[in-house]
């Protein structure tokens, strides 16, 4: 069954970021495989009820990361992305800082710390198993 993505139009996270994160999750998990075609900017924007530029920005970000090949009026095609080189120390620190900020946001929304920790442990176990 083809994947779906969901966004919350009232969330504090910008819509384009939600789209990027959702697509990247599917790409990393392998639910979107190299060669798969995803909808055009216009089609996805209409279905999600957001501006065309929002989806275009999300697609461009993922194309810059090497995930997508953008074809005008034909949507985007998932690329066979080469395993990225190990990130620099600065990049690693930035990524971990983003993780800390996300955890802080979850706590600010009222999700208990032990619940967050439990979810992180489960995700970590899945990641290690996937390797």
């Amino acid at each position, binding site marked *: *069954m*083809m*994947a*779906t*993505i*969901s*966004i*919350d*139009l*009232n*969330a504090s996270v910008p819509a384009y970021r939600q789209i990027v994160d959702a697509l990247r999750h*599917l790409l990393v998990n392998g639910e*979107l495989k190299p060669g798969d*075609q*995803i*909808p*055009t900017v*216009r*089609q*996805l*924007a*209409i*279905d*999600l*009820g*957001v*501006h*065309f530029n929002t989806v275009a920005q999300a697609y461009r970000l993922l194309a810059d990361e090497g995930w997508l090949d953008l074809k005008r009026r034909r*949507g985007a095609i998932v690329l066979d992305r080469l395993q990225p080189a190990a990130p620099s120390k600065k990049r690693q620190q930035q990524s971990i800082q983003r993780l800390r900020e996300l955890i802080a946001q979850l706590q600010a929304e009222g999700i208990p710390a032990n619940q967050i920790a439990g979810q992180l442990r489960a995700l970590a176990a899945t990641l290690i198993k996937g390797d």
Partner: protein
Amino acid sequence: MPLSILILMNLGFVLATILCCVAPVAQRSGIFFGVTVAPEFVRTPDARRILWRYRRSVIVTTLLCSAALWVVVPRLTGLAAPLTSSVLVFLGTGVAIVSTAIASKRVRPFASSYSPTRTASLRPRPQTLPGGRFVFAGPMLIVAAAHFLLLTRHDTLPAETYRAAFALLLTAYVANALLMWVAWLLLFRTRQICPSGSASAHESADKRFGYGLRLMFAYDLTAFMVAPALTVAKITQAFKGPSFLTILMAVQVIQTAIVLALAIKRRGTSIETPAARNGDGTSDACWKYGLIYYNPDDPAFVVGTRTGPYGCDLNFGNKWSWVVSFGLVAMPVLIRLVWL
């Protein structure tokens, strides 16, 4: 007015009334008179009461219009008969629209809260036209063929006759272009509310049917315009007289009966899914009286209609909708002023 025309008009009234009565319960699950409600609301006593009041006003109006059609119209002569018949049609349509708006207002206290969550499928939609490009372009091709025939008579026809015939074809060109454009938009530019599963297939089938209905209307309009144009230009006399009009009206009645039968068949089979609780993905606040959609933040040029199972409405928050609407209304006047 010939008896056959009166009978067909009355039949048209009856079929249109049945269609109006069935439409509110043949819509997408979660929408009732243009308002997002819980899917089970339509089975409550409040919903039944609102529905009955709406149907009552439509039925009573139809009975009065039918009575006027048989009592008043046969006594009229000249242009008064068709003008009065047109007034009755407008009256019936107007009452249906106003009744829908009133029913929508009555349903609003029972509206569901608006959900900001949007879900989209990542499967690209097929870009093929049902029936193919030839069927899609059919109305334009027919008008173009008639235009070609008219051009061959350009030197033999009086200038006024040529202009009158061409004005009809010009109207057909513009009207068909708009109809075909809206049919295409319905298929490729409306939101997919149910992203996956059987509900998605059901929704796609509804869109294809709506596309087919508009294309059918384009063919009907072509017949209405091309036949008089060819008759005026004396290219053929086959379409002259009331018999041709009777045939056209009979075809319209049969088409309406088929659509009605399909709408009745669809009634009660609309799939209730978790997505149905979000309605059609548009906010009730953007729908005026459940009939007109205005949302400048929505990129969609057209959205699924809330007044029936098949079709779309323009998003008047998009400036091009105003251009299209103005064009539709002003087109006959402009053609009359500029061309004739």
